[in-house]
């Protein structure tokens, strides 16, 4: 127990190395496949500047004569230089997907990090101080939970658009999206941490720390955080899937990332505009990538939830 509570990472590693979890991982081929798929997609996405055959969003490399080429495997008109076809601007769909996935992942990971830091801090504050502060934070959480995350993110985005000019908005769009998604996901972290703090607060070691003059908040941070690493990790994994979906949805709705820096959602929106003419590959391939990524992450999250705590739902 002492080893497990020393720091979050060592506690987590301790639990991972625990035979039951490792056994449950190995005995679920779905989970292993999901882990491999997640790892592969992340690796390819982050290596896209090296791996991608084209640099699709450098206008200098584009040629309209390459436009709307179908994928090689389904049509003799295909060109091996563009294995998954091109869009109406002549951009390579495969390279767009690789760069787009990277951007989607960056935004989602950053958003989850924002939500995590915000939620854990507010949860600690709420649980530790209690009283009016706790009441305010938790009521805000209640009200926010009334609204789906996508709506909260849309509202935040709309407000930011009201406060700054359109041109500035495109420059900071990525931060707006990260902030909007992050702000809409903090509640579950805060509730988990708060609950744990409430339990720990009355334990004797905290009282003892207070008696010998140690700052109890510090003691609690060091004892509470390791306790919640499991649940927080589960929430974060499941949130990552949701964050990827939310980012894609925002971008699809045209309020996320601008078309000059397309994420998977933006690519799907651009493809959707020409979908009626039957050029399905521009939409379908980014869509399949998005679905595969979210599915793999969700499978991991589901497994992690069951493995760390079968009662947690």
């Amino acid at each position, binding site marked *: 127990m002492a080893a497990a509570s020393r720091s979050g990472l060592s506690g987590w590693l301790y639990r991972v190395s625990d035979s039951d979890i490792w056994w449950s991982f190995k005995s679920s081929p779905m989970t292993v496949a999901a882990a491999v798929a997640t790892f592969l997609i992340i690796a390819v996405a982050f290596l896209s500047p090296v791996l991608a055959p084209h640099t699709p969003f450098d206008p200098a490399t584009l040629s309209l004569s390459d436009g709307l080429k179908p994928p090689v495997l389904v049509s003799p008109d295909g060109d091996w230089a563009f294995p998954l076809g091109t869009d109406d601007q002549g951009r390579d769909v495969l390279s767009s997907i690789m760069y787009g996935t990277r951007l989607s992942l960056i935004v989602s990971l950053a958003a989850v990090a924002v939500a995590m830091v915000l939620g854990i801090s507010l949860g600690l504050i709420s649980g530790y101080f209690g009283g009016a502060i706790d009441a305010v934070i938790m*009521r*805000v959480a*209640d*009200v926010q939970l*009334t*609204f*789906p995350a*996508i*709506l909260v993110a*849309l*509202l935040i*985005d*709309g*407000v930011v*658009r*009201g*406060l700054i000019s359109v041109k500035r908005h495109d420059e900071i769009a990525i931060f707006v999206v990260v902030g909007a998604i992050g702000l809409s996901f903090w509640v579950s972290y805060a509730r988990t941490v708060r609950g744990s703090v409430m339990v720990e607060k009355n334990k004797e070691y905290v009282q003892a720390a207070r008696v010998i003059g140690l700052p109890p908040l510090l003691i609690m941070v060091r004892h509470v955080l390791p306790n919640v690493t499991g649940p927080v990790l589960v929430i974060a994994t499941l949130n990552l*899937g949701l964050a990827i*979906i939310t980012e*894609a*949805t925002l971008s*699809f*709705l*045209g*309020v996320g990332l601008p078309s000059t820096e397309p994420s998977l*959602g933006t690519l*799907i929106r651009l493809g*959707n505009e020409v*979908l*009626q003419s*039957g050029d*399905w590959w521009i*939409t*379908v391939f980014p*869509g399949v990538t*998005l*679905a595969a990524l*979210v*599915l793999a992450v*969700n*499978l991991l999250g*589901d497994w992690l939830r069951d493995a760390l705590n079968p009662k947690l*739902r």
Partner: protein
Amino acid sequence: MLAFILRRILQSSAVLLAVGLVAFSLFRYVGDPVNAMVGQDTTMEERDALREKLGLNDPAPVQFFHFIANAARGNFGLSYRTSEPVGRLILERVPATLELSFCAAVFVLFVGVPMGVYTGLYPRHWSSRLLQAVSLIGISLPTFLIGILLILVFAVTLHWLPSFGRGDTVKVGWWVTNFLTVSGLKALILPAITLGLFQLTLIMRLVRSEMLEVMRTEYIKFARARGLTNRAINFGHALKNTLVPVITVAGLQLGSLIAFAVVTETVFAWPGVGQLFIQSVQFSDIPVMAAYLLLIGLFFVLVNLIVDLLYFAVDPRLRSQGGGARVGGH
């Protein structure tokens, strides 16, 4: 019971007031109501006069009170984008969204709950495993992607169903309905499935896990020991106990359909309030955003009240305690 309902109404009003505060802050401090009403060439003096006349120099609580009082009468000011009254804009589009959400809710409940019951009762059967796997894919597919795929298959490729708009509609009083024409009904199918599919998988998985949990309880084991038939146990005892937690979540999920309609309406160019909201976000049309926020808040409060009333119908523990702790809630 009455005391319980009253307390819930009071709590709901607090939530609604908080939403109102957010909407007011948006309306008053993010947007500038004066800018929306005047032209480029209005002088500073005229603006100040208008400001005074609109009460924008009053103390904030007074302004908030006026805002809420106006909102209650459906007066949300003018849209920045179209300069039309926001109340009318929204009212015109409410029927489209409500009909779409209603169809999606029917789809979710009448398909999702039976599927959840089935997979919960026979978790080891191959078809349950298949449904469970498909449901995970359903959860992982963003709504807009489902819509696009449905359009691609059923509209672009097969030409069976329309890919956008409401089709032919009929006006009943001020309410414009899809339900009275064949083309209107056909136009509803794809959007309703798209809107419902995500919630359907959620509800199915929820019912399944609750069902599995209930089937493990002592009273189900005791019901078996009493020799009751499987039918009586599964549908009499297990399903009813499953309902208690499912009602909470299902209520909230169905409530959120109206908010999720934002995405579906965009994909299918469905002229509802969701589409209006997206346009208002893109143009930062603050009055429309504020009004939409209040509308959604009101809708959620109503759904929550209905959920509370359903609790009374299902759970005798609540009826006799005159409203104590909520049992089985999350």
